[in-house]
């Protein structure tokens, strides 16, 4: 790394990104600085600081969606009444990121651009059908978060582009949702596995739509449409145990975890299934594991 320029507007940031060839946007720096120190880039990079760009900050309710500036730190997401009202899953994930100092620095957009399979914000954004808005000098484009993330560290972000907003579309009411992060400890832990789930119900209390996404059990967050379909029509408060077990089996068959120093692949596979089973169990059931960050809304 040789240079750093702090940008003060989006126009300035985009211009700076174009002026030189080897540039990277940097928001909170909590991932990129660690990565660059661990394995210095082959060519010197110019980091364009975007944490002070006002257009990339803030949480706003707009007609079609909740708009979250990409450089909004997780501390602001964790404290926002708008996020509490529209995206409690994302709020729980924000509270599970790192620890207080990290949450003051690390940003939602940074979490997406780092594209770690363990990124805490990814499972909630997948089940909320969130989109990203990318800006470059050529204009803006939008795509689903699930299309934006290609694999570990890989996204659709092109050179000269900045992720400027995350959009959480307004959607039918959610009857129940839950985010869980299982780690070796509560703070400063990289997830062994994480889970975001939500249920929408019809007038009779039957599941009209279920969405699940799992983190740290594949190259990106893993969704399991088969399990979601298996639960349609079940009573949300007490789904048929056989249907639950079929959905759990579908999850275990779909996830593609790896062995690493935090856990084995087989442990992660079983854990993913258990996280879904627990979400679908009546809320009075005792928890399985005191070490999980457990948050439920409904």
């Amino acid at each position, binding site marked *: 790394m040789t*240079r*750093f320029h702090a940008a003060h507007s989006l126009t300035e940031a985009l211009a700076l990104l174009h002026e030189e060839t080897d540039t990277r946007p940097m928001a909170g720096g*909590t991932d990129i600085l*660690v990565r660059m120190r661990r394995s210095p880039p082959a060519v010197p990079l110019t980091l364009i600081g975007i944490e002070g760009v006002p257009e990339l900050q803030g949480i706003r309710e707009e007609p079609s969606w909740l708009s979250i500036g990409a450089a909004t730190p997780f501390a602001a997401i964790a404290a926002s009444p708008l996020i509490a009202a529209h995206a409690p899953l994302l709020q729980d994930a924000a509270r599970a990121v790192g620890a*207080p100092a*990290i949450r*003051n620095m690390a940003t939602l957009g940074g979490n997406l651009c780092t594209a770690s399979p363990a990124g805490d914000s990814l499972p909630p954004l997948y089940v909320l059908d969130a989109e990203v808005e990318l800006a470059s000098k050529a204009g803006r484009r939008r795509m689903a978060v699930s299309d934006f993330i290609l694999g570990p560290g890989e996204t659709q972000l092109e050179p000269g582009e900045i992720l400027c907003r995350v959009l959480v579309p307004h959607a039918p009411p959610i009857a129940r949702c839950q985010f869980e992060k299982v780690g070796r400890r509560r703070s400063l832990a990289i997830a062994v596995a994480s889970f975001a789930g939500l249920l929408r119900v019809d007038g009779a209390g039957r599941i009209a739509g279920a969405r699940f996404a799992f983190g740290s059990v594949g190259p990106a967050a893993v969704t399991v449409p088969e399990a979601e379909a298996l639960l349609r029509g079940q009573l949300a408060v007490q789904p048929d145990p056989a249907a639950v077990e079929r959905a759990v089996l579908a999850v275990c068959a779909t996830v593609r975890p790896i062995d690493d120093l935090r856990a084995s692949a087989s442990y992660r596979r079983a854990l993913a299934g258990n996280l879904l089973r627990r979400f679908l169990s009546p809320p009075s059931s005792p928890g399985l594991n005191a070490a999980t960050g457990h948050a439920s809304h409904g």
Partner: protein
Amino acid sequence: MSTDIEFELNGKPVRIATPETRRAIDLLREDLHLTGSKEGCGAGECGACAVLIGDEIRLACLMLAGQLAGRRVTTIEGLPHSALGARLLRAFAEAGAVQCGYCIPGMEMAAFDLLRREPDPSRERIREALSGNLCRCTGYVKIVDAVRLAAAGDAGPESPPDGAAA
């Protein structure tokens, strides 16, 4: 390639020529000789380098000198300038919270940040606020005791120490 960077450090204006990509922890310790902030992991996992940037607790190992420009920086050396900071440092000594001491500046910065916003936090809130600070002597109980002790003698919330308020 150095640039002149200006910021406020523990209540005093500072102007220093430095590469903008120099890490804030190196600028503080090696160039400005404020060796209270410690580098533990260098990767944002231990909290030993915690400082206040404006009103926020942040990690000096994950900030670049260029990011400090125009900001208000408070390090452990600035804590005794305020009544709350001074009381906190005394409480750590009185509670016997310090073993090897390496994590303590970061612990005290995180505790100061908490007490400034919440004058009378529960033990649970204290543990949460200090959750990003690792002590490898693992003497967490007395550290939490120390923060409670400082809170008990509390006289109300404070703004960050700026020298003038000493």
